[in-house]
């Protein structure tokens, strides 16, 4: 193991803060908290091992750990579900890993003001199970809905599949408590009171402390929206003879103006081809089906039922063929179980091999979707050409705006990777490809990520390009709030802030 052990005196302090049963230095405890979902550079697993893991049970303990880290100049890395796709939870510079999973209690359900206050280690599916008897849900619904945790959703400012209807994490989290990089515990929201949704008092700190990938602190409590369980739901899948028709239909549906519209998903031609080829669970369709659009609505029956008729009309008027109730209901219901895609992909010769799934995402303006699609597939083709361990699994496009689902779209390309084959050369090529994918997105007037964040090798290099002067402000904020650079160092190129100061 490449990592140097922490001094005994530091470990003793950690034990004094968190209790002996909540401090770990064993190898399996460390290795299993160094990794995140694929693609994980398994040949470099050794490089990012934390030196100690703590499972705190209170904000005060976390605050003390952070203060200790500042005294000793040891990195602190927060970890919730560890399901993020941009390595936010990977301890790039080793240090103390603060795993918040033990803090998973529901603290208050307020039926009057419609809030639920929770600790950061709770999972959204579990939370919704607990809310069910009251007739409520917490509709922050990413692909990782069954396993990601509220703290990580805030740290990454996540995207929700049904965000067009209910909003994304930033819209569903009303306020939260966070331990700053210097150890102070503060509460941020739109304004002062923890249950206030809209305020114009002071700086809007809630947004600053979301999506920072753990570089600006550790969330210890959050007050969330309590949303009435929808009375009715509707989903429909339409087939199109070409991508361009499906793209036009996606625009029509997204601009339809229905408040109950929860999401529109476009499957491009490569995606349909891939599903037909290798996804045994995908309901078979005739060869004439080249591209598919899925649409879903949630709400009160009085809203959803009449709107559903209009959606069916738009689908048909746009040249779509309704694919039937079976796929419309079952495939939609199974979206989360199926996003990780099958166990296998294919080499160039068509040989089936075990492959993991990776997804590159960006936010792209609607008008630029067709050209981005072509350029992304060309990048994937180039990669596959050079290394017979990558497979292009096609693209999805999703409505991206909260409550206003028109305009820009979460755009994803899924790439299968035969991970047993990783070596330095293929990894470097992959990182280059990711950078190119990101460059196309930025050049198209988009953002490097709508969903995952942009911390991973490759795309992170383009963050200054994307944000321009905003990146300079990020560096200043980072330096001001984290003078010793202990909070998840190495992420988002923020180390540069300290190099410039030196």
């Amino acid at each position, binding site marked *: *193991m490449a990592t140097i052990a922490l001094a005994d005196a530091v470990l003793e302090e950690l034990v004094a803060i968190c209790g002996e049963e909540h401090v770990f230095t*064993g*190898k*399996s*405890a460390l*290795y*299993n*908290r160094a*990794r*995140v*979902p*694929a*693609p*994980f550079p*398994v*040949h470099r*697993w*050794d490089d990012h091992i934390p030196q100690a893991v703590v*499972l705190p049970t209170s904000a005060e303990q976390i605050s003390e750990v952070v203060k200790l880290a500042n005294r000793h100049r040891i990195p602190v890395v927060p970890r919730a*579900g*560890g*399901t993020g796709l941009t390595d936010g939870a990977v301890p790039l510079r080793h240090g103390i890993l603060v*795993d918040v*999973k*033990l803090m*998973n209690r529901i603290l208050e359900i307020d039926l009057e003001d419609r809030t639920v206050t929770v600790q950061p*280690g709770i*999972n959204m*599916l*579990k939370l919704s199970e607990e809310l069910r008897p009251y007739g409520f849900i917490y509709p922050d619904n990413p692909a*990782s809905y*069954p*396993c990601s945790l509220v703290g990580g959703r805030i740290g990454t400012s996540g995207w929700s599949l049904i965000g067009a209807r209910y909003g994304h994490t930033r819209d569903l989290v009303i306020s939260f408590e966070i331990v700053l990089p210097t150890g102070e515990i503060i509460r941020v929201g739109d304004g002062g009171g923890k249950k206030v949704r809209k305020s114009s008092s002071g700086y809007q700190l809630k947004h600053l402390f979301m999506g920072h990938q753990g570089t600006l602190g550790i969330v210890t409590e959050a007050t969330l929206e309590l949303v009435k369980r929808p009375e009715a739901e509707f989903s429909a899948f339409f087939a199109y003879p070409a991508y361009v028709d499906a793209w036009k239909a996606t625009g029509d549906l997204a601009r339809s103006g229905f408040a109950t519209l929860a999401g529109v998903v476009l499957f491009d031609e490569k995606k349909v081809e891939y599903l037909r080829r290798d*996804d*045994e*669970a995908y309901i078979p369709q005739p060869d004439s089906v080249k591209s598919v659009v899925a649409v879903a609505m949630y709400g009160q029956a009085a809203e959803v039922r009449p709107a559903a008729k209009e959606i069916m009309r738009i689908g048909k008027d746009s040249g779509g063929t309704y694919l039937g109730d079976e796929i419309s209901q079952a495939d939609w219901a*199974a979206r989360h*179980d*199926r*996003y*990780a*895609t*099958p*166990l*296998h992909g294919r080499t160039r010769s068509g*040989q*089936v*091999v*075990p*492959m*993991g*799934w990776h997804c590159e995402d960006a936010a792209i303006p609607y008008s630029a979707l067709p050209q981005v699609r072509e350029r992304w597939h060309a990048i994937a083709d180039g990669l596959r050409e050079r290394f017979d361990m990558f497979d292009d699994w096609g693209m999805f496009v999703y409505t991206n705006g909260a409550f206003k689902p028109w305009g820009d779209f979460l755009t994803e390309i899924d790439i299968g*990777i035969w*991970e*047993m*084959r990783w070596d330095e050369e293929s990894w470097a090529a992959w990182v280059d490809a990711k950078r190119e994918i990101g460059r196309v997105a930025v050049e198209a007037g988009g953002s490097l990520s709508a969903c995952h964040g942009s911390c991973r090798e490759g795309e992170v290099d383009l963050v200054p390009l994307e944000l321009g002067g905003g990146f300079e402000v990020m560096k200043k904020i980072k330096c001001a709030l984290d003078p010793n650079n202990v909070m998840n160092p190495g992420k988002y190129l923020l180390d540069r802030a300290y190099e410039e100061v030196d």
Partner: protein
Amino acid sequence: MATEKTTGAPGNGALTEAFVEEWRNAAYNCFSSGHKFCREVCPVMQVTRDERHTPTAFHANVVAMDKGHLAVEDVAEDYVHCTMCGACELRCPNTLFTGDFYRFRQRTVDLVKAMRALAVAKGVHQKSWKRWADLTDRWGNEPVLGWNVETSQSKVRAWATGLEIPIGGETVLFADCEAAFYRTSVPRAVALILQAAGVEFGLMKEQWCCGGPMWETGYVDVAHKMAEHNMMDWRRTGTKRVICLDPHDYITMVEHYPPLDEGFDEFEIVLAVDLVAELIRDGRLALTTPIDRTVTYHDPCRLNKRMGVHQSPREILRAIPGLTFVDVDHVTQWSYCSGAGGGLPIEKPELTAEISRRRVAKAKELEGVDTLVSACPWSERPLTEQGKTQGIEVYDIFELVAESAGFEV
């Protein structure tokens, strides 16, 4: 599917290399996804919240061993944290994706067994499991009454005193260790029910532990010895049909016995809960005494999650007169467990107690429920303990059936 040999657990020895070779592809199938849908349904993880105890970690460790980062000594204790309930397998995206089509299932339970066996083979023991295995080997049955109370052959049929059950015959009732020595009301209830329905059956001449817990905790040699003895005993008494009242015995016999014995097909292994449902359905068993209780049913993991058996017990409960049955569907119960499986209560009794406490609390939340009914004797000990403090009585399904058939057990 193409496979590939990479580095192969350098320095960890031939046993580890063979283990890694066998599990590498499965481990990568998990590692390459890493989406952890398994985590929040895992009964142990729900309590410890420790990533070392997740099915994902159980697979990732194989990759780490393959790369030479970890050895079995580093992880053996982590693998204690599993009740082998199978929830993770059902919830795994890999299973969900291909399960319907290829009957594929991520084999996490088998992986945990294999890792535990590797640990034992390499001399890495868990103290209480070793003691449990040693005593099982010595006494023939598990030490379910404590380390110092011998569960010997002379007492294995003591529960049947006065029931006049013959030895051997074409059909035998297999009463597992926990039922035969601890919750003796369960085998008595089953025997009375079968007799009342006119099912002819005997008891084994010499019944040893089914061997399941030995496979589960890594003591494979002891397991083989138990299984081979039991099959020999069946042959000695002309037995062709074995009725299992305990799901653990059943799954052991159908999963582990056949590879050991080429002639296994001559035996039929029957699940008592299926048989009793059939007897009621066919009118061979009359349930006439009303039971004035409001019950909910605990889906034992090996029935529900491992074998997909969830209808028979519900059919039985609905046939009991007077009973109010508040059902919680079997899919919701994927994330429920008593904590009693996989040897967990032997090594980590405090974890079993907490898992059971949470399970009983789920029953307590249901309006009017005063009784939790299970169909697995192993689950009933910790559930009963927790039921006492939460005001919920715990019954075995056969105890209720026997009572409704007019027996006192």
